[in-house]
């Protein structure tokens, strides 16, 4: 069904008064336009009469609780940041800006970390050896040990995440 010119503008209220009057005169004798206008009005009316849904009773309270949690979380991160800065400042004060002493201390720290790493490796290696020896699954043992390790990492990550988000 071919639309008459001006129908769209009439139905979208895009006509000035003059054009509108001319179109209304056309409408009086054009059955096609009358049908289109009638249908468009019927749909518009039904759309506007759609029943409205209500917000859940505690909607606003839930939003506000979420906002408070976020604010707390941001505050917590701010505290972490402040703590890091404080510790750095404290270290600076203790070392008193003595560069060679700092370099010496840094070397000592790196060495002790390396030693600690070495010891840790030995401990893990020994525990693994004991575990592998104890597990009667042959080739499955490394995969199982790896799986357990990954699961522990995941639990650690989730715990750290929920703490940083301010939830337990």
């Amino acid at each position, binding site marked *: 069904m071919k639309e008459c010119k001006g129908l769209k503008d009439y139905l979208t209220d895009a006509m000035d008064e003059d054009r509108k009057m001319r179109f209304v005169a056309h409408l009086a004798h054009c059955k096609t336009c009358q049908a289109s206008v009638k249908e468009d009005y019927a749909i518009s009316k039904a*759309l506007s009469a759609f029943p409205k849904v209500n917000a859940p009773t505690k909607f606003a309270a839930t939003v506000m609780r979420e*906002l408070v949690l*976020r604010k707390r979380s941001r505050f917590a991160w701010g505290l972490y940041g402040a703590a890091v800065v404080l510790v750095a400042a404290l270290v600076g004060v203790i070392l008193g800006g003595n560069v060679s002493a700092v370099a010496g201390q840094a070397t000592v720290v790196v060495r002790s970390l390396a030693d600690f790493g070495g010891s840790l490796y030995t401990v893990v290696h020994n525990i693994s050896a004991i575990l592998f020896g104890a597990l009667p699954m042959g080739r499955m043992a490394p995969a199982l040990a790896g799986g357990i390790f990954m699961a522990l990492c995941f639990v650690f990550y989730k715990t750290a995440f929920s703490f940083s988000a301010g939830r337990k």
Partner: protein
Amino acid sequence: MDVTEELQVIDAVLKGDVDRYEALVNRYQKPIINFIFRMVGNYEDATELAQDVFIKSYVSLAGFNRQYRFSTWLFRIATNRAIDFLRKRKVAVVSMEGDYEDYTPQYKSDGSSPLETLEDGRLKTLLGDAIQQLPPEYREVIVLYHVTETSYEEIAEITGLPLGTVKNRIFRARKMLKKILEGEI
């Protein structure tokens, strides 16, 4: 709550009085949930998305441009969130643009429109389903105009579209709905 009061509340919230934000949530929760509900077609999703909208609005409140109304800004966030959700959900939306004019309804015409013969309740049910079949860009304007009773001008501000395009899309959306409904009857 008028525009001036809204701006006062926004200022208070920006100064750290978070509790005042609840007044804005109370004022706009219903229109936002209704808008999103008609966009996504599911009440639970709509309430969750509406929560996101209010949280996003709070988080970026400092960026609120006072030359617009708060409702315009909020509906812009809601529109983006709903369309983003629909994209992610990957609903199989059949593109109606350009096709609907060639569509022939499967009913025998006796000269009168089948829409006129429908009882009110059934028409609303069918219409609710038909809206879900519209492409999102048509759905957003028709829901904003008819369901949340937003003016053409405000829809243009919300969507960033020229006024003429908004009117054209609403008109075309209604024609698409008519074709879909005629196919359903």
